[in-house]
């Protein structure tokens, strides 16, 4: 496998992608740029899932919980304590001063730590906390026999608990959700949609480069080996359980980071994001993209969200139906998703022109 990230094969499409991404703010309306800014953290979430699924055959039905959790933490730090009690609804009915005041002052201090208006804790804390919880879950899940079967079920449970708990916590707005979250770039660049887009795009690019590098590194190969042939790896002296737990923790941390970036663009986080429906939506992005391919998260998210944006208004319920059919078709016919299809498509075209493809030279 080539040691370089930028292969000849890749560099041209990559360059075009970067060019398109850079030109987008000049061509598209503010509203559309705002949509893109929302989708980029979705891509990051899909990458976190790909780390588990594409590389190690672990499917998580609970990553929405980490995404939402990260989003809540970042949202609180970005927004700071709610200065005015008007929005705190029925807590007003109690005559006490509210026991949230210690929490408020801690939050006030923490969110005050800023660099050019961006609180760095809004990234550090979600990553740390989600990673820690992910580690705990990972250690629990991978004690059980069949990882492939039990991981989805247990992560489903985690999602259910998380959604229920988030709904009850008044500090994050409870069932109202956390609203009024300002963007990270409010001081840097006035918080314009374009600045949010650029901010998220840069983060995504960094994560992508890191992910690609990881896949090519020795650690990455070991991670893949744990999925392909855990028994042999264990025989070679690697503690596969611990490795998987760590991998799950890393994935959870990345999902938390994605959530943190998301709230900066959406201004809002609600408890249902932690639930099954959103977690499965994330899996659909990845399934359509093709788990295991480097650009699958990007392709999957863009394909589905674009289609959703265009079609869901007109088709409403039928659109959801199509999504279900699409999932079935992808699972049956295109397990490597759109990227797989593109790859086979390109290979087919090349065969037409008489050039054989050497084995193992995958991009």
């Amino acid at each position: 496998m080539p040691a370089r990230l930028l292969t000849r094969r890749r560099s041209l499409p990559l360059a075009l992608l970067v060019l398109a991404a850079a030109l987008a703010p000049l061509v598209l309306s503010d509203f559309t740029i705002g949509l893109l800014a929302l989708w980029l953290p979705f891509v990051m979430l899909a990458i976190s899932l790909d780390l588990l699924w594409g590389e190690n055959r672990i499917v998580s039905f609970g990553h929405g919980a980490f995404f939402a959790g990260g989003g809540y933490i970042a949202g609180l730090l970005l927004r700071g304590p709610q200065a005015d009690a008007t929005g705190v609804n029925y807590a007003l009915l109690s005559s006490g001063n509210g026991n949230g005041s210690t929490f408020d002052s801690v939050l006030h201090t923490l969110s005050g730590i800023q660099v050019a208006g961006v609180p760095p804790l809004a990234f550090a804390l979600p990553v740390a906390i989600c990673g820690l919880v992910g580690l705990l879950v990972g250690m629990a899940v991978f004690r059980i026999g069949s990882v492939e079967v039990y991981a989805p079920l247990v992560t489903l449970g985690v999602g259910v608990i998380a959604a229920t708990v988030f709904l009850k916590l008044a500090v994050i707005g409870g069932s109202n959700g956390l609203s009024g979250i300002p963007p990270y770039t409010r001081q840097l660049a006035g918080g314009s949609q374009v600045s949010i887009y650029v901010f998220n795009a840069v983060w995504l690019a960094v994560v992508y480069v890191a992910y690609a590098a990881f896949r090519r590194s020795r650690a990455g190969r070991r991670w893949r080996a744990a999925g392909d042939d855990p028994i042999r790896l264990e025989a070679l002296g690697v503690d596969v359980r611990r490795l998987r737990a760590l991998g799950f923790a890393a994935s959870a941390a990345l999902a938390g980071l994605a959530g943190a970036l998301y709230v900066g663009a959406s201004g809002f986080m609600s408890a249902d994001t932690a639930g099954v429906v959103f977690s499965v939506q994330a899996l659909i992005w990845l399934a359509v993209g093709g788990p295991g391919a480097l650009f699958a998260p990007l392709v999957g998210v863009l394909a589905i969200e674009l289609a959703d944006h265009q079609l869901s208004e007109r088709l409403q319920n039928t659109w959801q139906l199509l999504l279900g059919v699409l999932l079935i078709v992808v699972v049956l016919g295109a397990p490597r998703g759109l990227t797989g299809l593109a790859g086979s498509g390109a290979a087919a075209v090349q065969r037409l022109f008489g050039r054989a493809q050497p084995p193992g030279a995958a991009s």
Partner: protein
Amino acid sequence: MLVQIAAQGLSVGAVLALSALGLTIVYGVMGVVNLAHGEFVMLGAYAMTLLSPLIGPWAAIALAPLIVGAIGLVVDRALIRWLYHDPVKSMLGTFGLAIVIRQLVLIVEGPQLRYVGLPLTGAVSLGFGQTFPLWRVVLIAAAVVVGIGMAIWLARSATGLKVRTTTVDADVAQSLGMNVGRVNALAFAIGTGLAGLAGALVAPLDSVYPNMGLSYLVGAFLVVILAGLGSIRNALGWAAGVGLLTAAVAVPADDVLAQVVVWSVALAIVALRRQPLVASRV
């Protein structure tokens, strides 16, 4: 109060048992984790609700599992058989199926909640001046009868033997001359039929609407996580356990708390276990 908790717990457990049974049979025989299970429960509820004004509630309850099982048979031949023995593939494929079934019902029937009345009103006396709804007793009885019936059928009948053999080793079954494809289809039909029965029995007490399946799926999974996939006896036992724990927290306190407690306890049990209760595939 203890009697109420026990009765309520068994009632909740009965519904869980009926759902979990179907899920566990399907996995045991063909290695498919059926995430559309809740949707088959929903189909059973709709079948009962729509048929009841036409042929009466009891006939509707009897017919619903057959209808849902027939649908299951078709679904198996069309989709499920490409997903055998592949957990990840089957989870995703059946989730797509769940979306499709749900949306079809939504489009055809609309999002409104449906109404069907109780076939049996009235209550039984539990002593101490406490009463318990008669229909819930029917639920418990149904779960027990079906559970025992399934166990006997599997143990004694010829087809049951084929199913058990296929569960243990499909290749061996095939080499012994059994038509494994037919066994799989039958198992899926039974699994979905059981789900349909659960839905039909629950419809008079519950609200019937397209999205109702999700909570039944989640409940069934809870039992299955604890019981391990593939053992009927475990499924029944753990279903009762979950039901009782839920009632024990919910009756004196709060249903929200009950949900959190039950899930946390379940995950803790799973985490602390050295190995799964039942040897599962792979």
